[in-house]
Every structure is written in C-alpha cells, then in structure tokens.
C-alpha cells in the first residue's frame, strides 16, 4: 500500500515537473533572446545574452508602432469582454430560468456557433461591414469579437445560472420584483465566480485575436498588438531581435494578468461545466 503510494508520488512529481519545464523553458528562452542583437541570435540561438541589449525593445516599440497597438489591444479586450460577459449572463439567465420551449432552439444555435471557424465567415462579414460603413472602425472590431465570444460564454453562463436554486428567484418575484430586477440584484451577485472566469477567458481570447482585426481594419491607429507582432514575424527579411522583443511585449502582459487572476479562473468552473 505504502509502496504504491510512493510510486504514485514519484509519477506525480515527474509529470508535474515535466510540464513545468516544457512551459518555462521556451518562455525563458524567448525573453533571453529578446535582449540579444540579431547577429548574436543568428550565431548563437541558445546562449544567454552577454549584455543587456535594450535596443530591440526601443526599436520594435517605435518602428512597429507597438505603443498604439498596445493601447488598442487593451481597449478592444476590455470593452468587448465587458459587453460579452454582460450579454452572455443575460442570455444565460433567460435561457435557463424562463422555461420557454424555444430557449432550447436558441441554445442549440449558440452551440453550433462553437463549430464555426473565423475564416468561413470573414469575407461575408467584411462585405457586410463595408456596406454598413463600420469596416475600419473600432465598432467594427468589437461587434465580431462579442459575437465570437458568445457561444462559449453563453454556455458557461447558462450552466452556472441553472445551478442557482429557483427558490431565490421565486420568492423575489412573489415580493413583486420584475425579472430584470431579479437579474441585476440576485443573479449577477451570486454569479460572481463564473463572471470572473468568463471575463478572464474572454479577455485572453480577445487579446490574442489576429485574423479579424487584421482583415476588418486598415489604419495603424485602430489596430492591435497581434497585427504588430505579425509584421515582425519572419519572412523574406528579418531581425530576430526585434521579433523576440515584439513577442515579449505581446506575451508578458498576459502572463502577468494571468498570474494575478489565476485563482479566479478555476472557481467559475466548479459550478459551471456540469450537468445539474
């Protein structure tokens, strides 16, 4: 009994440490290389930097307009995440607690949305946005971000709200509250754990999104970081130093964001993602 337990502990440590190394090594390697000039990286890709070469960051920031992109990334991620979460919570509440039959059809529609790739809608979407005059505007980016975020977030919201006992809602209704009041004063406060989870997930997804913002915008002033990073990512001519510094600028903020909020990610899943 004890032997098997020790054996399991060894296996557990082995798996955990392997995963950790696989995660840390590439990230450390990326950060180290971002402090090396291009010629150093070409000649010795694996060695640590001999001195702190900050020029990469200065140049990629200025030459690649990363300052503007950075601001836009925060803008898009923030606004569309907040809207996605509010809309998804509203839908989740309506779909799970109103007991209309057609809720099932709507829910099914959202589930099918999980299966759609961005590439299969991008051309019609662009044509529509141009006709509406919102292509190349911030609104034109935020709308599809919300729409693509919805299927998964509606799912999370619906399963979570389903788990909230009906009694709470019913007593409020009997006391004369209307459904919208119930949503704002009862459902939303109880759902804080899933809201944090939804927020973090959506934010991460929006932060890393590339195809939509690349296709639907054309001005530097309204584009976001992934577009900036893409313009540094290799090809016919290159500067690996700039490339790595751009990758660090795009990646490290999300790692920090995650480290701050990491304990919030898990809590929403405790009640979501299960059938009650």
């Amino acid at each position, binding site marked *: 009994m004890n032997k098997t337990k020790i054996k*399991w*502990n060894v296996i*557990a440590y082995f798996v*955990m440490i392997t*995963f*950790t190394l*696989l*995660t840390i090594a*590439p*990230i450390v*390697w990326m950060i180290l290389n971002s402090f090396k000039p291009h010629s150093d990286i070409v000649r010795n*890709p694996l060695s640590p930097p001999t001195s702190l070469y900050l020029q990469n960051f200065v140049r990629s920031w200025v030459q690649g307009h990363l300052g503007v992109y950075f601001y836009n990334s925060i803008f898009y991620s923030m606004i569309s995440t907040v809207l996605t979460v509010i*809309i998804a919570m*509203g*839908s989740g*509440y*309506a779909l799970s607690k*109103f007991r*209309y039959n057609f809720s099932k059809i*709507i829910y099914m*529609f959202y589930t099918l*949305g*999980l*299966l*759609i*790739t961005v*590439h*299969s*809608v991008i*051309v*019609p*979407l662009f044509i*529509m946005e141009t006709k509406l005059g919102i292509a190349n505007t911030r609104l034109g980016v935020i*709308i*599809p971000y*919300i*729409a*693509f975020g*919805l*299927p998964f977030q509606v799912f999370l919201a619906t399963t979570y709200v389903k788990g909230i006992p009906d009694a709470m809602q019913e007593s409020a209704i009997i006391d004369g509250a*209307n*459904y919208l009041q119930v*949503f704002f004063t009862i459902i939303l406060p109880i759902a804080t754990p899933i809201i944090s989870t939804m927020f973090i997930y959506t934010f991460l997804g929006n932060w*890393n999104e*590339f195809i939509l913002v690349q296709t639907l915008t054309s001005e530097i002033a309204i584009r976001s970081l992934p577009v900036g990073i893409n313009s540094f*990512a290799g090809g016919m001519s290159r500067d690996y130093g700039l490339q790595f510094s751009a990758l660090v600028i*795009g*990646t490290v903020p*999300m*790692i920090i*964001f*995650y480290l701050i909020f990491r304990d919030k*990610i*898990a*809590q929403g*899943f*405790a009640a979501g*993602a*299960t*059938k009650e």
Partner: protein
Amino acid sequence: MTFKQQKMASYWLLIAPGLILFAAVIVFPVFYSFSLSFTKWSGYGKSLFVGLENYRNIFSDPVFLHGLRNNMLIVAISVFGQIPLGFLLAYMLHRKMVRGGEFYQTMIFLPITISPVVVALLWNQIFSSSGIVTALIRNFSGNSQYVMKIFEDKSQAIIPILFVLLWMHTGTYMIIYLANLQKINPSVLEAAQIDGATEGQMFFRIILPSMVGTITTTAIFAIAGSLKAFDLIYAMTGGGPAHFTEVIAIYMYTNTFKYYKYGFGSAVSIIIVLLSVGLILILQSASKKIEKKYE
C-alpha cells in the same frame, strides 16, 4: 402589461442583444456560405451553380482525406489524451500527491495565455531540423550528421503538432476537473474509506461517476475545437511539408484565399460543421449510455 407579457418582454430584452449580434456575424454568413457551397465562384462576376460537384471533388481529393485523417488524430489526442491527462493531473493535485500544487497548477495552465503564433514559433525552434532536439541528439550520440526528420514522414509528421496541442490544452481540462473534484462531498469519501474501500474502488465507484457529465461536456468542446484547429498548425507548418500536416481548416483556407475558389472553400467549411455535429451526437449518445449504467 400582464405578468406574462412582462415576463416575455424581459426575456427578449435579455436575449435579443446577443442573439442579434450572433445572427448577424455568424449565422447569416454561414447560411450565405452554405448557398455558395453549391456554386463555382472566384469572388468576381457571376457564380455558377454546380450542385454537389464541390462536395464530390472534396471527398475524392487525397489531400483532403489526409487532412481529415489528421483532424481525427487531433480529435483523438484531445479526447483520449488531453482529457485523461488533464483528469490525472487534476486528481494528483486534488489528492495532494505533490507539494506546491498551486505552483504546478499555475504552470500547467500557463500555455493557454500565450498566443498560438508565439507558441508555434517557440516550438518550431525545438522540432525543426536545425532545432534544439537535433542539437541535443547530435551532442549525445556524437553523430554530427544527425537530423530530426519526423516532419518528412507522411504518417508521423503530425506527431509534434499533437504533442504541442497536448501541452497547450491539457491545462484547461485540468482546471475544469479540479474545480469539479473539489465539489465532491468529502464526507462521502470518508464514509467509503471507513467501510474499507480501496483508493481504486473510491476512484471508480464514487469519483469517476460523479464526473461523467463534466467529462462529456469537455469532450464536446474538445471535438469542436479539434475539427476547426487552424492557428497553431498554420503557424507551425502551414500544413506542410507536402501536405503531411494538412488539416481541414487549412485546406479550406488555401482553397479560398490562395486559389480563389469561394464555392469550394465554403463547401469545406460546411463539411467541418457537419462532421462536428455528427461526432458530438455520437458522443452524446455514448455518454447517455454510460450515465444510465451508473444510475
């Protein structure tokens, strides 16, 4: 306004914003591409109705079939790799088999925060024929001519990608399972232990049955994600060399955006949806059977 009307109005007020956005951005274009899938259209001028020709051509193209095979392997690695491994990791953490579980949990989930493009770039440096694996093997074996050639084998080329996918997504499943494991009432387990149940019996009789619902749901997401997998593979190999790592989404992309075959490309994306729906239906009926068995 009667109570019923008020209820109905609130319902639509809550549902409408999301539904309108979703319909406009996703549903409408999908119907549009469904109708395009029966035509031949280069993006300009008139489209030509060709019936099912696109679908017939797709299914007789060996490149598509190899892509389909790769997608199925990705489904397999997701459902039979990421999910069990994520479950195992969650279980190990839950049973506190390692010290510093918080730290490991953080590290295992971390990859999901990084953009697939960055992940691809980093892993390419590891697997490429001039990459780290090759350098290490050369050092250890003393064979300075050694070159890692896994990408040059039609049937094996997808393996490094499967490995990276496993690394990338296992963390998500682990977090979900961990959260749900923590919901199991500890007193039930204690009671079982007092009754003399072994670790294995507790796992199979109590823990696993209570997780069936969660596992089914995560498997649905795994399937949906696997069939539309694009970003990572496109950035890592672009489907090459020689289409060895082709997947359906890349096949669709190439035909639409490089060869300007809109009708054909639309048919491919419809196939992605239909395949996903099919697999998910199979999965759901299987899980219903399992759930019945436990009841």
